[in-house]
């Protein structure tokens, strides 16, 4: 079964494509496909981080910074308070380009740093992006955020906020394209170069790999994916929201997704996104609705709202996971290979 195992991400995507169909068969209170949309966006973010941290082994704590840059570029390119007013794909391209530029600017001076120092530099980058957006209010409207973002129009079709299905398949197709490209990269000379840098930088350099260039290419691919995730997030919300929405917590959630799924594993990232974001947006909302429907629990009880105890479960799950399955839910094929010997 190793072939199926290494292609599991395509199985996941196929199942996701069928979810809205399944949804119509379920009773009203159990429907969930609507809530898969943010999961697609976060899966894209995780995919970008996975290229940098999972494949190339560069700990990046600034994923939210790239997401913010992508999101704000998309907002500035589309919103009618600015003169640009590009279409959906034009704006997506714009945010990918600004994300890429930011990746190059951050990468040039920092990619020669080793391990932990790079992590600190990217952490600083995430904070800087947030403060710049908050304070550059002539351009970014500061803490108000940019809104309204016009609904995307594709081939004459207007995406209405009321109807989730077109959005669902839009995000699904973009995620699918990204998964195909990243898995192509992983199974090619480029992916091997990234992994060889993670495994042993010196040996890789002595075999003729331009290490800085390999790291830079990983950083650029990661930055592009993260900023596209940001652009989709903004179009999904219809607003950039407050700059504080792109804080360190987002970077950490993205990192958790990659680690819970399995560092360097594409199906792992998809599953990680489902587990981490789905826990919050599907499972907990269902539980909250169920608790409210029980007349025996009074609404003043602190346990009645899952928001009061969700991080408790979350933290506990992470501790248990790191104790019993530190390599992730779906470890990368190479790890798997090694255990099977």
């Amino acid at each position: 079964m190793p072939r199926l195992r290494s292609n599991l991400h395509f199985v996941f995507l196929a199942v996701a494509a069928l979810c809205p169909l399944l949804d119509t068969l379920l009773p009203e209170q159990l429907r969930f496909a609507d809530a898969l949309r943010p999961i697609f966006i976060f899966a894209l973010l995780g995919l970008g981080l996975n290229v940098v941290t999972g494949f190339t082994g560069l700990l990046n704590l600034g994923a939210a910074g790239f997401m913010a840059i992508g999101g704000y570029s998309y907002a500035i390119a589309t919103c009618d308070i600015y003169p640009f007013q590009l279409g959906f794909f034009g704006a997506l391209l714009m945010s990918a380009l600004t994300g890429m530029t930011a990746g190059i600017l951050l990468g040039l001076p920092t990619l020669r740093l080793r391990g932990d120092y790079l992590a600190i530099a990217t952490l600083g980058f995430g904070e800087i992006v947030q403060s710049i957006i908050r304070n550059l209010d002539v351009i970014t409207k500061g803490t108000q955020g940019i809104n309204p973002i016009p609904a995307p129009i594709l081939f004459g079709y207007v995406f209405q906020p009321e109807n989730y299905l077109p959005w669902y398949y839009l995000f699904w197709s973009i995620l699918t394209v990204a998964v195909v490209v990243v898995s192509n990269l992983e199974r090619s000379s480029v992916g091997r170069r990234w992994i060889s840098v993670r495994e042993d930088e010196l040996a890789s350099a002595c075999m003729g790999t331009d290490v800085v260039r390999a790291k830079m290419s990983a950083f650029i691919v990661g930055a592009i994916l993260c900023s596209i995730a940001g652009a989709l997030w903004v179009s999904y919300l219809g607003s950039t929201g407050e700059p504080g929405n792109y804080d360190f917590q987002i970077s950490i959630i993205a990192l958790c997704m990659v680690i819970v799924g399995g560092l360097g594993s594409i199906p792992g990232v998809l599953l990680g996104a489902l587990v981490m974001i789905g826990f919050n947006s599907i499972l907990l909302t269902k539980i909250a609705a169920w608790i409210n429907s029980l007349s025996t629990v009074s609404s003043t009880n602190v346990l009645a709202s899952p928001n009061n105890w969700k991080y408790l479960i979350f933290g506990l799950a992470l501790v248990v996971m790191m104790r019993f399955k530190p390599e992730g839910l779906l470890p990368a094929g190479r790890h798997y290979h090694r255990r099977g010997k």
Partner: protein
Amino acid sequence: MSVLLVNSLCMRFGGLVAVNNVSLKVDTGQIVSVIGPNGAGKTTAFNAITGVYPPSSGEVIFNGINARRGLDGANVIAIVSTALLAGFLLLLICNAQTIWEQVINAHYVYLEPFPWTKAVREFGSFVFSSAAWPYFVSGFLLGGAGATAIWFRSRTSPFILCKAGMARTFQNIRLFQEMSVIENVLVAIDARAGANLFEAGLRLPSFFGKRRAALKAARELLDFVQLEKFANQPASALPYGYQRRLEIARALATHPKLLLLDEPAAGMNPAESEELITLIERISERGVAVLLIEHHMKVVMSISDRIVVLDYGNKIAEGSAAEVRANPRVIEAYLGKEAAR
């Protein structure tokens, strides 16, 4: 003609002189060994030759080219263009608010068509105004200094020497443990002729030809070191002696003119070191010059065309196996003064 010429190489770490004034020469097709007691500076000399450390003084001439590159035209162009770009970017970033106000906000009336030519002219006049040049100059200096520093530090680097035809193995095996045997070899081939990001990510037609050629070359090399049976096993699962052979195959995959082997026979039993001797002779027959560090005297004495002896960082003897064996200074270094008398 000599492949490698080392002229009075010195390697100092603070007050410690690890390699002192060592000169050596490897001619085409020769097998030269470097021997010496533990701590004599053999591996340090190796690292200085392969560009892992920049030598404190002295020069390494590989294939007629100085391994420490000087400043050439391409470097100057790269440095100047980086500096120009940095100047322009700093100008934009530091004046983002003013530029936005003067170029965008001053001309954009809500939902009216935007006068692009006027805005571009306004932008041009700001960039060339006297308010802008201090930013440009500081950015130019900053970028220029950064690019120069990067050039200075990358004057010797393992990957450039590897591209020029110098390959090595390591004293403590440094394979890419998580990768399969064949992937280890492929990394070295990719660095020479791998697909780029676009070819690999989008599976362009040119990708498949490169992949086929790389796999063929990798299989041939595994065949050469008799590891073809293990091609798809993880490198970490190979027995020790085979890992050494895989490292040699990986080094050969870079198409070297000179192969540096750092204690290839360490930890091998007599049968294995016998096999190693044949392997090194077969490598030499392929026209690859070999520079060898070894403690295993049987290996050294049977295959070396010339032997260089180091002790406390100094070269104490050089010559054929018989000459070195009879040299009193060598006997003294290995066995002490009493034995030398």
